[in-house]
């Protein structure tokens, strides 16, 4: 197990920094502290265990790399969204593991900030950033995947508690989470978008059962979660009853527009890794010098630049106080499809490596074969491609569906 012994947090000195000085401070800290074994472009890579990952993310938080825009009163660093973008550019530039608490930091946290009570903000938010509470997202159900308004999990008010019964599915990371952001129905199914409420449910509560599902990459990263008359205190209800759908929409808008803002720069890191691996191998070096592959690499560069443009435009819109609304679908749709195209190109190229395979090629194959499989989910989760196209047609183009 890798022991995370980081250099002193930079927040003590970086509090006054802005712009490029802030970028340099974040870059230096990350490069000095990210263990080589966490880097999937390294021969020393070994997938970190949960406790190692928790320690690393807690260290990142202390260094100012999580809760960047959250108010200081709730444990955040009180910085701007532009600085959040800068930090994410630096995070993306390195081949580090995905957060095990991105739901907490990028979905639950923002929604609690938006609709939570003061007590909830003080109780939930520091625990997320310090990695004491890992969150998962309980939205999708067997009968309500893309069509969330059709969800059937019920929440019945019983005095000062709610009783939740139902089943969630595709709940990423539920097996390791302490809390689940549950969307449940308080009214009849026919109410569709009305009568939905949101709760912060403890996963060690009586009546909660988590069953991991094995995914195509061989991992058990997402789960089914069963709720059997689970008691949830009113103090764990998020927002007013019957406002759950509005809260869910806000969550999904955030998820599509700003979640994992580092993606474009991680994508760039992946491209650099692929090219470096190819240039280390005689056969692949010759192959990528072919005009056909030069053009394919050029297409990837263009895809990345367009993704950066979508992200930066969204950040500027949010900085100006605009709601991102349906426009979050644009970046999500572009990124998910572009990343799949890139992953297919990567495994196509690496499959043509010389024999015996060099260590650099083996490292790249291990990384990009995993990315290829995981990327199949990217056009499914957070709203499928078809849902995103529907959102663009309905809400941006406002095309009529009437007769």
């Amino acid at each position, binding site marked *: 197990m890798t022991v995370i012994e980081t250099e002193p947090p930079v927040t003590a000195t970086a509090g006054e920094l802005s712009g490029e000085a802030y970028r340099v401070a974040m870059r230096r800290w990350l490069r000095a502290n990210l263990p080589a074994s966490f880097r999937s472009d390294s021969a020393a890579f070994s997938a970190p265990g949960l406790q190692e990952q928790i320690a690393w993310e807690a260290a990142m938080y202390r260094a100012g790399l999580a809760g960047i825009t959250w108010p200081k009163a709730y444990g955040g660093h009180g910085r701007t969204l532009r600085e959040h973008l800068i930090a994410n550019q630096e995070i993306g530039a390195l*081949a580090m593991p995905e957060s095990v608490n991105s739901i907490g930091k990028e979905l639950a946290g923002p929604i609690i900030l938006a609709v939570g009570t003061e007590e909830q903000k003080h109780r939930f938010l520091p625990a997320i950033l310090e990695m004491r509470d890992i969150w998962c997202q309980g939205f999708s159900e067997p009968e309500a995947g893309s069509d969330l308004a059709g969800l059937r999990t019920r929440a019945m008010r019983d005095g000062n508690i709610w009783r939740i019964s139902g089943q969630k599915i595709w709940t990423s990371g539920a097996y390791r989470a302490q809390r689940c952001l549950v969307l449940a129905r308080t009214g009849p199914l026919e109410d569709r978008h009305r009568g939905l409420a949101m709760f912060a449910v403890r996963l060690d509560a009586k009546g909660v059962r988590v069953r991991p599902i094995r995914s195509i990459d061989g991992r058990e990263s997402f789960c089914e979660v069963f709720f059997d008359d689970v008691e949830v205190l009113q103090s764990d209800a998020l927002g007013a009853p019957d406002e759950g759908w509005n809260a869910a929409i806000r969550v999904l808008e955030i998820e599509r527009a700003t979640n994992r803002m580092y993606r474009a720069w991680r994508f760039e890191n992946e491209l*650099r890794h692929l090219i470096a691996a190819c240039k280390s191998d005689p056969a692949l070096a010759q192959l990528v010098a072919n005009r056909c592959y*030069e053009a394919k690499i050029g297409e990837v560069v263009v895809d990345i630049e367009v993704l950066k443009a979508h992200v930066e435009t969204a950040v500027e819109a949010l900085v100006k106080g605009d709601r991102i609304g349906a426009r979050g679908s644009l970046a999500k749709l572009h990124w998910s499809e572009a990343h799949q195209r890139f992953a297919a190109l990567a495994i196509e190229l690496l499959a043509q490596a010389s024999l015996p395979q060099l260590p650099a090629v083996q490292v790249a194959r291990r990384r990009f074969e995993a990315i290829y499989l995981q990327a199949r989910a990217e056009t499914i989760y957070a709203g499928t491609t078809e849902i995103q*196209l529907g959102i663009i047609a309905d809400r941006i183009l406002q*095309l009529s569906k009437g*007769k």
Partner: protein
Amino acid sequence: MTTLTGDGLQPSEFAVTAARAVADCAALGPRDQAKHLADDGLLGVLASQDVGGLDLPLAFAVPVVTAAGSGLLGFPLMEALLLSRALQDALPRVAEAIVSGGMLATIAWQGTLSAEREGESVVLNGWVARAACARDADCILVRIGTAAAALVPTDSEGVVVEDAAGLDLTVPEHSVRLQGVTIPAASVLPDSTWALLSSDANVLRAAAILGSAETCLALAQEHVSTRRQFGRALSYNQALRHSLARQKLALEGIRHAITRSVGEAAGPVEHDSVFLAAAAYGCAISEGALQVHGGMGFTWDVPVHRHLRRVRALQAQGDASGSLAALGRRTIAAIAPASDLAVSG
């Protein structure tokens, strides 16, 4: 990203003026168009105030060229904007004449000439092509060797402008043959000129394509909303809804990439990428709009084909295929082979 301002001006403020001027130019010949555009201050957006221009950053030319694309302006506007700035130091009188609409200038984007110095003159020989409206132009900027450029009057002895086959009906391109054409050495511009022109032209080509793409999508949107089949508006059909949603995604990709390409941190990668994205997406949008129109899309009267032709011409003018491979080649060359540890950070 940076919000660009010039004396408090915003680039978007030029959009309305440009759209109106483009509409007014519809019935005019090239020389009258030049005068009209100059009177509205649109030809000197980039040129220095010394030659009558506004001395504004490239971002301010974007809405002007977008309006020209949207309104199918039959004038080499991008060339005038870039040339008036490129010539302002070396040939200020020419730059001033371009800004005032008194001289019609263009650029031959394809091909390169050989040049031989003879005293205070230079003798040019060879073929160049993809020169927009060269038949009507007073002078043409041509490329010499790999980096230099020179301004050649079209009435010089040995200059032959030839009609070239091309898709574009709006801004016809010509080939130009130069046989022993003698020009003053002072007409040869510094070596950096061509690279800067080409790089900025890529942003403005993207802007022109954005204008065409916006119009095509608007036409397609109107068609699916008003055309009824099987008792319903076409927009009822998910296949068409998704097709238009993809076109919208592509359109916003061009728009956002243009914004990025005129930011403070933008360089050659951003300029090349915005053109390449616009060329690919612009073709998809205009071809998609044509398809959505069904048989009507194949008719001469529905203007989608004019935009499609224009987008294809701009794609070829910027050598999209060659640029894409070159972008990949430069990216590959900039990355060292993998060593044993952490190669991509």
